[in-house]
């Protein structure tokens, strides 16, 4: 974990408010694992003051890819960066999805939650059988489908809330059936809190190990400010940035 000056190789507007940024790193790309994230200095001034957390979408040393949505001023500033611009990036941060062998793993991604899921799919295919559920609000939010097509996935289920692409409905709509039908014993998930909440209900009682990659408001990203607290079911808080972002789904109080 280190702060590096990274060079923007490309920063492409994928669709609507979604961008894919390719960054040249020094050591981050070779050190990172699926689930890890980086803190990006979106500005060189004091406004915005804090770095912003973004999951690593793909690593291709010395390059990493970030797939991000413009939601506020930091991500907006990021979207304006161009080839050869430099920016300070801290990482890789956080833990990662555990490594398995010979398992049927279901990957579940809601919207930009595809980020660590994609990285996991690329890295954890060997020896496992992977399935993917990927859903979002509408076709405009369900991006990178061509890249996903070329992943070594046994089966992909696409959803959109408004039915504009894939099946109409929520990511979690058929998750129980999909798990049972495909003899899934592991899930990796990432998405908005509402998705985790409903996932937690849907998965209750199934003999599946569930790993969820969470988001939280972050101050530092490396465990010292205690801003990113998430309540655990056993009581007390965990830090999403350094205890996570990957937790057992059932350990979190939803």
């Amino acid at each position: 974990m280190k702060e590096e000056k990274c060079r923007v190789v490309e920063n492409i507007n994928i669709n609507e408010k979604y961008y894919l940024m390719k960054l040249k790193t020094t050591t981050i790309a070779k050190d990172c694992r699926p689930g890890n994230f980086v803190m990006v200095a979106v500005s060189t001034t004091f406004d915005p003051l804090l770095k912003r957390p973004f999951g690593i979408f793909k690593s291709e040393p010395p390059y990493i890819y970030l797939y991000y949505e413009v939601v506020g001023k930091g991500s907006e500033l990021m979207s304006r960066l161009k080839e050869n611009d430099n920016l300070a990036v801290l990482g890789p941060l956080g833990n990662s999805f555990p490594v398995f062998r010979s398992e049927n793993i279901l990957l579940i991604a809601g919207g930009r939650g595809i980020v660590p899921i994609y990285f996991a799919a690329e890295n954890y295919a060997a020896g496992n059988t992977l399935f993917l559920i990927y859903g979002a609000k509408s076709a405009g939010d369900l991006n990178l489908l061509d890249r996903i097509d070329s992943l070594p996935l046994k089966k992909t289920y696409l959803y959109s809330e408004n039915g504009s692409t894939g099946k109409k409905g929520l990511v979690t709509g058929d998750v129980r059936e999909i798990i049972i039908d495909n003899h899934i014993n592991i899930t990796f998930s990432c998405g908005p809190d509402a998705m985790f909440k409903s996932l937690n209900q849907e998965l209750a009682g199934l003999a599946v190990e569930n790993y969820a990659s969470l988001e939280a408001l972050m101050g530092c990203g490396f465990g010292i400010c205690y801003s990113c607290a998430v309540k655990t079911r056993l009581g007390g808080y965990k830090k999403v940035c350094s205890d996570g972002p990957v937790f057992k789904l059932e350990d979190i109080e939803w």
Partner: protein
Amino acid sequence: MVDLSADLGFIKLKNPVIPASGTFGYGEEFQTFFDLDILGAFVLKGIYKNPRPGNIPPRLHETAAGLLNSIGLAGPGAEELVNIIKRVAGITHTPVVVNVCGEDDEEYLEVAQIFDALDEVAMLELNISCPNVRAGGKCPAQDGQHTYRLVKLIKQNTVKPLIVKLSPNVKDIVSIALSAEEAGADALSLVNAYLGLAVNLKSRAPVFRNVFAGLSGPAIKPLALKLVYEVARQVAVPVIGIGGITCGGDVLEFILAGASAVQTGTVNMVEPAASVRILHEIETQMQELQIKNLEEIRGELKI
């Protein structure tokens, strides 16, 4: 060659840069970024007797060039901190400062005594100014008598140098400073975070459960610098300046305003290796400005 050392009277620090409580974890988290030995000293995250979960999230809200926080002094409790300090002492010779908290005077004393007895601790910092624990941001530093009583109690029962950390959310910071000094404080550190409010328009409620939260970061620098100037002129004990410091120039401004050393807060969260850069900048600027040592300019603001 310039001399960066900072003299607090009871201790001479290698340099004036002291990462502030709550923004530097327990020190060890920064090892991957730089050698802790480069620092003047560092202050550990505030500690109570017992473990505390901290406040219900959200705990943070960004404002223009500032940060509102309502962490609520989450921490592992004094017993566990003793273990941590022993570990940390193994990795650095830099003086370690414990930020002492308490629900009441008794707890303050108990915590202070635990760390007063610990060889690995160089100084105690009495945190009587946390804005995020009690309703409305209340804290002992808002009351001169309470400040006096508490500081006296700690001084009478401990031997290590005691820094008293003041709040800017007070009627008259100079009078509180004088109370702390009179009660025996060996140094004063100021300021803790400013009380501020943020509103969530969607929920039509304050962003924070505690309604108010503590504002820190570059936004408060001109305000903090003013308070340091006012206090430093009135007290004889050394003053440690805190508030929005982000670069070497800021450090020198605080020294000119009367501080003997400084604490850097929010900047450590934003840029973990900030101390390295700041130290380098201080040295370069001292050379440029032909300042041989900090005592030469301390409090020498030409009015």
